[in-house]
């Protein structure tokens, strides 16, 4: 289950295994009360060189590190920067939220196995995002948009708690507008201005028509969502190999050593964070 990336890493001098590379924040945006967007550039000008679905370890010395997914596509116009979107939940993320344009931070990575782009190519792609799950998926969606010709039908289903919790609303407007993308969004609880769907994400599923022979579903969201969405997808006839998920676990090293992200015999940081449902099904602690 080793990705191409691991070979790349071997060329990093050993000393730098735990040493972050210096980077600077070039743009920030408060997306919701708790989520903030950062555009980051390496001080040496090198691109990050990631694949959609991979993650990096952000580092603030004195505070610590935290793994976060990359939300920009490697096909982005300005390849010298990349983007992340972080929810404020604890020590590190609180400290990160205090940073602004011009502030420096450290980056390790990219790490992990991204979404299986090669397999998705030529096929239909159903993207299901719940809450923060949109963060790594945005990278994939924008990748697909930039390489639209390589993919078949593309459907995006989005679920959030409420209209105010929606991330990347600008992108969403764009996706909604695009004719070659099917886009739907639902919220658990509406507010007076909300005109769209109301209900958990599975309520969108019946309306989705897929060709089970050529569709891959890429699903990212909280653990509770997986259970229901996977059941729906299997009902629609997708095979376990056609369902792709991304998992979140506690991580310290990102290098397959520290043991925190271990799910049964796999390490999320190295073997994942993306998996096919087939890979995870037998793992008792995965979902």
């Amino acid at each position: 289950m080793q990705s191409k990336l691991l070979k790349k890493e071997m060329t990093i001098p050993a000393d730098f295994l735990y040493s972050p590379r210096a980077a600077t924040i070039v743009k920030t945006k408060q997306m919701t009360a708790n989520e903030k967007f950062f555009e980051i550039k390496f001080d040496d000008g090198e691109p990050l060189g990631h694949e959609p679905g991979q993650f990096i370890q952000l580092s603030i010395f004195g505070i610590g590190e935290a793994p976060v997914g990359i939300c920009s596509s490697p096909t982005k116009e300005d390849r010298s920067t990349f983007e992340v979107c972080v929810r404020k939940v604890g020590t590190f993320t609180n400290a990160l939220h205090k940073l602004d344009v011009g502030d420096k931070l450290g980056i390790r990575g990219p790490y992990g196995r991204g979404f299986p782009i090669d397999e998705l190519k030529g096929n239909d792609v159903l993207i299901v995002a719940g809450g923060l799950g949109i963060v790594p998926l945005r990278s994939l969606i924008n990748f697909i948009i930039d390489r639209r010709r390589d993919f078949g039908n593309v459907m995006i289903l989005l679920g959030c708690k409420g209209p105010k919790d929606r991330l990347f609303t600008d992108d969403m407007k764009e996706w909604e507008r695009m004719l070659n993308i099917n886009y739907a969004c639902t919220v658990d609880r509406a507010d007076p201005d909300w005109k769209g769907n109301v209900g958990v994400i599975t309520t969108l599923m019946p309306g989705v028509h897929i060709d089970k022979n050529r569709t891959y579903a890429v699903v990212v969201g909280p653990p509770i969502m997986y259970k229901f969405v996977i059941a729906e997808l299997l009902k629609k006839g997708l095979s376990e190999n056609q369902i792709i998920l991304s998992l979140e676990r506690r991580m310290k090293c990102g290098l397959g050593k520290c043991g925190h992200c271990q799910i049964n015999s796999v390490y999320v940081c190295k073997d994942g964070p993306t998996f096919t449902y087939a890979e995870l099904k037998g793992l008792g602690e995965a979902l």
Partner: protein
Amino acid sequence: MRYVSLQKDKLPQFVNSLQKKYKVVAPVKKENLFVFATIEDPEEVELDYMPTILPPKKYFLPQHEKLGSFVKDNVAMADTNIDVEPTVLFGAHTCDIEGIECLDIVFHDTPADPYFGRRKKSIIIIGYECMKPCDEYSTCVTMDTLNPRAGYDIMITDIGDKYILYINSPEGMGIIGKNPIFGKVENERDVKTKLLKLREDKVKNFKVQIDADYKELNKIFGTSYNSKTWQDVGKRCVSCGNCTAVCPTCYCFDINDEVKLDMSGGKRERVWDSCQLDEFAMVTGGENFRKERSSRQRHRYYRKFDYSVKKYSKFFCVGCGRCTRTCMADISLIETVNELAKEHKNAK
């Protein structure tokens, strides 16, 4: 020359000669138990010892290890090189050597861990073969770690009237060198035969307590994931983390930053962690993927007998018995595995 002999009374002299060039760490007494410690006086060395409280992994993966330092307003980590004093690990048992081998596999798996690598390179391992069982908790026969195999520079075997030293590496050769305290071995083939015979004979002294052999073990774990044994073990466990700390093949760690008092900088270090602790697998939002003590204990066993086999084709239990010895709740590896073996057999 692969073998030399050493008169028993010359052992302190040998240790003394090592001390001239190396820091020597060896088993010494601590109250009624033993620990590996830097020795000052060769007389402190206790070769007839029970497995130490902590295995020698603490020299390869220290309890607290600095990864590097940093200064304020600079994101680069400096000082990532570690200097390891040339060290001799003296008198390590074969099970512990096997434990170091397990760690070696993990830390050399891509991407290789530079800190472990450097320590491994700087530590010369002189093993000491067990001729009799240490206590009823070890399972070295089942785990096939009783006899020396690999991972050491020199192996000392007590053949009764004297020691035979087997030299297994250029570093080992460097140590033996031309030191006159060692005797020449006339016929290396004879010695080899003699040692093989000795090993055949000594196994008889060891009582095998696990009701499954090496090959069956993995199969047993293949069917035991949902065994009720885990509930029983979980009920007794107090999550003190002792079993993982003392295990020669447990290597999980945490990474922490600590700033200096004047806040001008600080260091990033890694500290031993334990999958038995409540928070170990907790993520944002409070979700904990191994909330129950039973699932954490199961995880530990599976890391020894199943996951490691899937990942590295190797058992990560070396049969040292420490986890059982240290557990105040009397959770016994032998009992647990036998319980699983029984269930496995009955299911069949």
